[in-house]
């Protein structure tokens, strides 16, 4: 790296970080604009047609919606930096409080699902590639592509319903929703499965195709020519080249996981952000919608940034490859 005086790694990090900041600005502006783009009076829509004009006017003033637009934006930005996301129009509770209460459940669910995806998809995909390389074991290949293809297109909320019917109602093995609030590990099984199966199947397919490409590359032939043990050939020479592709897709999958968790949470009555978001949209509780969308969007952007940084470390070429 010393030959490049301009520190490509630092420049790459700088570009990525700038991109992250721009996206964040876009997200903040979009959530702010959302309330102002609603046709008619959002406060009237939230309070219903029976509310008195005085109440609507008072609530409008309370929310600052009667101020000039730029001042509202400045207040919104200022609130974000001080952690003040406003108050729920329904319950009057601070939005930040709602998020703090519910985020851990969503985050843990998404994390568990992600780990399950990664520790199943990458080994299975690699093993299938090593197994079916060059048209060997056509039957196994067909079975794998067929089953994984089917699983990859079944959306998580339908899978969730199917899992409930099979494991909770027919077999009575696992619980669906928790009414006691204990949230033990048993309650994580079905939601995790519903979230993880589709992405795992999709990623497994991609890893297999990537691995097939990597395994037939010239440098893998070099590695075989060096008579390295199979363990080294696959783990040291193939895996890093494969991870770049897997990680890129994996990043997209996490974004999908975060969005998919909204649906799965609603199926399983999960006490997370997703059910809060849907309830807030239905109740036209705009401050809560804004806050939760900010959290989801921010999480997606953070994941993308983390993936970019990891890619830069894993594949040294990615730091110089683009623009």
């Amino acid at each position, binding site marked *: 790296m010393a030959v490049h005086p301009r520190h490509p790694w630092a420049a790459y990090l700088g570009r990525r970080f700038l991109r992250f900041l721009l996206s964040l600005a876009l997200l903040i502006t979009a959530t702010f604009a959302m309330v102002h783009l609603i046709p008619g009076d959002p406060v009237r829509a939230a309070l219903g047609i029976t509310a008195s004009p005085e109440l609507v006017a008072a609530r409008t003033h309370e929310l600052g919606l009667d101020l000039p637009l730029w001042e509202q934006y400045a207040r919104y930005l200022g609130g974000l930096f001080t952690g003040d996301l406003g108050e729920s129009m329904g319950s009057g509770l601070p939005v930040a409080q709602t998020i703090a209460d519910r985020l851990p459940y969503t985050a843990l669910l998404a994390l568990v699902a992600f780990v399950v995806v990664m520790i199943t998809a990458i080994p299975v995909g690699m093993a299938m590639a090593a197994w079916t390389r060059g048209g060997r074991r056509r039957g196994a290949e067909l079975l794998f592509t067929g089953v994984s293809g089917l699983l990859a297109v079944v959306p998580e*909320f*339908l899978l969730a319903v199917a899992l*409930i019917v099979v494991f909770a109602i027919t077999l009575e093995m696992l619980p669906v929703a928790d009414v006691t609030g204990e949230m033990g590990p048993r309650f994580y099984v079905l939601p995790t499965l519903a979230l993880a199966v589709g992405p795992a199947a999709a990623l497994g397919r991609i890893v297999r195709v990537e691995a097939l490409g990597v395994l037939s590359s010239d440098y893998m032939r*070099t590695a075989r020519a060096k008579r390295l043990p199979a363990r080294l050939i696959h783990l040291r020479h193939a895996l890093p080249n494969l991870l770049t592709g897997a990680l890129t897709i994996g990043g997209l999958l996490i974004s999908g996981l975060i969005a998919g968790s909204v649906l799965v949470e609603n199926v399983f009555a999960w006490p997370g952000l997703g059910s809060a978001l849907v309830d807030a*949209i*239905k109740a036209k509780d705009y401050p809560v919608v804004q806050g939760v969308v900010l959290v989801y969007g921010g999480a997606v952007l953070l994941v993308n940034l983390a993936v970019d940084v990891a890619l830069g470390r894993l*594949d040294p070429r990615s730091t110089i490859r683009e623009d």
Partner: protein
Amino acid sequence: MRRLRSPLGVAAVVSLAFLLFAVVLGPVIWAGDAVRTDTLALTQGPSAAHPMGTDGLGRDVLARVMVAARSTIGLALLATAVAVAGGLLLGGLPAVLGRRAGRLVNGFIGLVVAFPGLLIALVLAVVLGTGGRSAALAIGLASVPAFARLTQTLAASVAGRDFVAAARVLGVGRVRMLVRHILPNIGEPLIVQATLGAGGALLAFAALSFLGLGVQAPDYDWGLLLNEGLNRVYLNPAAALAPGIAVVLAGLAFNVLGEFAAQVFGGRAAVARPSGRSARPVPGDALTVTGLRVSYGDAVPVKDVSFTVAPGERVGIVGESGSGKSLTALAVSGLVEPPGVVSGSIASGETAMVFQDPMTSLNPALRVGTQLAEVARVHGRLARRAAWERAVTRLDDVHIAAAARVAAQYPHELSGGMRQRAMIAMGLMGGPRVIIADEPTTALDVTVQKQILDLLREVSSTTGAAILLISHDLAVVAQLCSRVLVMYAGVIVEDLTVERLLAGPAHPYTRALLASVPDMAADRSLPLATIPGRMPSPADPAAGCPFAPRCERADEHCREELPALEAGVRCWHPVDRPVASDAVRAGESGRDDLRVNGVGS
């Protein structure tokens, strides 16, 4: 039409029929059953009268699912239309706008595309309100960035092609360029994506309705039916499963149609790649190959090859493309993969391989030093630090300046010549008795070629390793080797010294090969000399000498029986007199003139 008989074609036809049936006939056939309430059968499980049970008002679930097909699929198509139209508009903008504004639009698309579609759709649902049409609009708009990105990428790829450049030279305006020249050429991939996108829109719509943000009661679509079914899932699971199954089937149908469209447009075909197990060399002093045969089913590209290489000897294998020389090298180093089958015996000491393309033969994700050191770690059982030091020493041995720094670099930071040196250094790590170099200089430019050949010679004389050089270039072989094996159609036709090669070989093929090498004295007004005819295919079970059909000296005997390799020649009618050809005379005056163009490939 032939495509329709492939499994994918059949699946596509079935999918289309299924979708059309549900959309056109679903509401017609089941409209009555879907609204008839049966107060005697509220929320019942499946029965003969109601295959999927009844809902809370006693209406037949199956009928309601079938009736909902039209609105569900219709709204999904509406959303797709919005997505495609918006995507074309936004994605086409950069092509129409100037460079600076175009970059701005691209940057914006890039930022928006990072957010998951469902999140965007939820935000839009807040703005647009709930209901079927608004949900379709929300989902459509949420997929606009993805389509815009696709349009823009495709348009950019087309914009670089010759016919667009030609149109630009002719002064065609930007809008006209987009509509007349660019869009028609990216239509096919867009149709494929739109079909796949319709499946995605269907699922997204089901999701929104399921959350209660899409179609509102008393209207219903599959998502809403699923929601109602899930509320009563303990009483009648079938009511939750039926709309779910419908969504999955319709989603699959769109996917199959998209795949089929991709196959029709793209003409994709599965390519079989040879791969698999290989014969491993056994440790020994010199390389001894006996009765080597490599076959791929009926094709036998290498037939009965036997030769030995003495320690420190430098042997070249030459031949045209398809003569089996590279496959012989791969077989010797045990790298032939199934379905290739290797038989015969190969006895060799430690081998090292140097491949043709140094750009792709090093692992791009690992430091050069790591790739060298691991050989010593695995085979020499050296400690990490000692292995690294040996790697630096070897890099130094192959005359890489600042070896310690290069060891810490990645392959992409090295030039082609440096990488080939690193490959040779890597080969030296294991203390090889034989270095097999398969066209090691073909991918390099001429000045670097000579350096690499000099390096190989130096390495061979300092370490005592034998060299087996595979090349189509007689000049390269003559520069480096002392002995040459000439291969033709999978057999060795002649085994001779370089002196003998230059003085006049005995086999007619070798002579023809030599005669086709142009030299400095060649008359440029004449076409290059070639060997008339072509090499038999490896699948031909020809009995006689494979060169007989192209040989002037061949007779009946040649066509019937393959001669044995005797005194270094496999020929019934070898040339006795050492007749000097033009090329050979040039070769005597200086071997380096015997360069350029190579033979036959």
